[in-house]
């Protein structure tokens, strides 16, 4: 009796839906809704996991060519030798086995937002109701710089090992040059952390000469107190910090780096170019036509592009102004996942989403600092804004924070990938 009536009602409502009486989110309920995610970093993996966790009736397909993610978080400890590559390598298997995410081991090459299809390198066409782009970052070119020779190591993996080799190649008393790009870039405290660990490593191996830090920014971008203190006391005489200094070209055959001030002779180097949204975001026209746009404008309630409907951008490529980091990418992915779950139920996004950033940076081989901030949605401006009194850095690096760093990273890895 009930099922008969229910079937009848479904048929009737189906006719109504076909007649266009219902909004499109409800139309999608007649078949399993399809979410396609491009990119399996902290943003994409978290999105895939949480959509399935919160509504297993939604099909989720993750397009990602690699079998595992190599985390930038903790990767400076692989550079120093404190950790190995296996410590920062996370397989995607759990997303499939535990959450039922379909993983397509292929590279997305183009998006057709009109017919809602993604094309892949191997020639597949993958249809979506909602598309989420999480491709991370891309780099500006610097004349003479070949990052396969001189690593940026701002994407972990082979680049991390190439940086480790650079560090090991510094002769006693030699000069290591590293550069920090104009903000915003991925992981605000990251380059300063790296400078500290390079200096620490050289000091411990009795090879310390000079670590010259070329910062395109006018001052330290994050944890100014922590890093100024580290540079001027812990690493006094080793780290030479040069703000307002941008790398203009590199001639690595003669190991020369030219800045807006002068040309520096190096023994080893780590040049991190200026960053922008991933290639696919740019190619899909998601940056808009504003000159110099580098990140995709999105609605922070859902991370849907303000330019192309049904395409969402999360993680480093989005342009809400929140810091670019794995922890923040995870936070945004949950806001987006919640908005997608609500969307397929015919509901509006949560009107007051919150995100937060918390991260630990090793300052020496035994101590770490932390940086934190909470963001809330400001309805008047339509922006995510730091909540007063929440932005802070650790008063001093400690051994306790160093221990906590591993607890944070393990939980963040697990919450994002397993």
């Amino acid at each position, binding site marked *: 009796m009930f099922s008969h009536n*229910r079937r009848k*009602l*479904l048929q*009737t*409502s189906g*006719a*109504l*839906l076909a007649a266009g*009486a*219902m909004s499109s989110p*409800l139309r999608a*309920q007649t078949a399993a809704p399809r979410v396609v995610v491009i990119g399996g970093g902290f943003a994409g993996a978290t999105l895939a996991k*949480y959509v399935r*966790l*919160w*509504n*297993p*009736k939604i099909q989720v397909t993750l397009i990602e060519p690699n079998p595992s993610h190599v985390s930038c978080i903790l990767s400076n400890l692989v550079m120093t030798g404190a950790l190995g590559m296996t410590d920062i390598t996370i397989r995607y298997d759990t997303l499939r086995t535990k959450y039922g995410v379909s993983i397509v081991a292929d590279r997305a090459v183009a998006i057709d937002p009109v017919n809602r299809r993604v094309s892949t390198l191997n020639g597949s066409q993958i249809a979506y109701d909602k598309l989420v782009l999480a491709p991370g970052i891309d780099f500006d070119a610097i004349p003479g710089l070949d990052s396969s020779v001189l690593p940026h190591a701002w994407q972990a993996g082979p680049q991390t090992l190439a940086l480790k080799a650079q560090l090991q190649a510094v002769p006693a008393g030699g000069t290591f040059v590293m550069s920090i790009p104009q903000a915003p870039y991925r992981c605000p405290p990251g380059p300063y952390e790296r400078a500290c660990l390079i200096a620490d490593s050289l000091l411990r191996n009795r090879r310390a000469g000079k670590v010259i830090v070329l910062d395109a920014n006018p001052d330290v971008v994050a944890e100014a107190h922590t890093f100024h203190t580290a540079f001027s006391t812990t690493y006094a005489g080793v780290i030479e910090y040069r703000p307002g200094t941008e790398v203009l070209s590199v001639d690595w055959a003669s190991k020369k780096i030219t800045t807006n001030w002068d040309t520096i002779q190096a023994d080893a180097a780590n040049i991190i170019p200026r960053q922008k949204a991933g290639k696919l975001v740019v190619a899909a026209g998601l940056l808009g036509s504003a000159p110099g746009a580098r990140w995709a404008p999105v609605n922070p309630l859902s991370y849907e592009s303000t330019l192309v409907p049904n395409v969402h951008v999360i993680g480093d490529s989005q342009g809400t102004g929140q810091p670019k980091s794995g*922890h923040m990418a*995870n*936070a945004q992915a*949950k*806001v987006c996942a*919640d908005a997608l*779950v*609500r969307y*397929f*139920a*015919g*509901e*509006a996004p*949560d009107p007051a*989403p*919150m*995100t*937060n950033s*918390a991260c630990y940076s090793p300052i020496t081989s035994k101590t770490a600092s*932390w940086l*934190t*901030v*909470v*963001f*809330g949605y400001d309805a008047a401006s339509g922006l995510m804004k730091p*909540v007063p*009194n*929440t*932005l*802070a850095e*650790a*008063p001093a690096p400690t051994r306790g924070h160093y*221990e*906590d760093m*591993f*607890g*944070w990273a*393990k*939980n*963040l890895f*697990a*919450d994002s990938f397993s």
Partner: protein
Amino acid sequence: MKAHPKHLGRLAALALLLATAAAHGAPPAGRLLASQCAQCHGTNGQAVAGMEKLAGESESEIYGELIKMKANIKPDEIMHRQAAGYSDAQIRLMARYFATGGRTTATSSTGSSTTPSTRPTRRKSHDD
């Protein structure tokens, strides 16, 4: 098929209800807020290592701790800054979510609430 106009409104309302009920649609109150703790405290508060597990703690315990933290921010405590980011009402929602394992009433802009059908099975997985 032609539906009589006076039935259309009722049918549309019923269809909407069904679609919503069928969709795991309305998220439990506090779920999205609480998920922002998971980066450090584990998915659904089940920390894997090195951080406090929130799942299974009582509502008053979590609420009381966070309210105390934001009332007296110590510079060396990262959690005090985090606590300062949320209103008392938001902290209440998160505390209730962790204490009940997500069996809080559904959020809805219309103020209606539903009882999740998975209630009995979910209860087993928690030690409350």
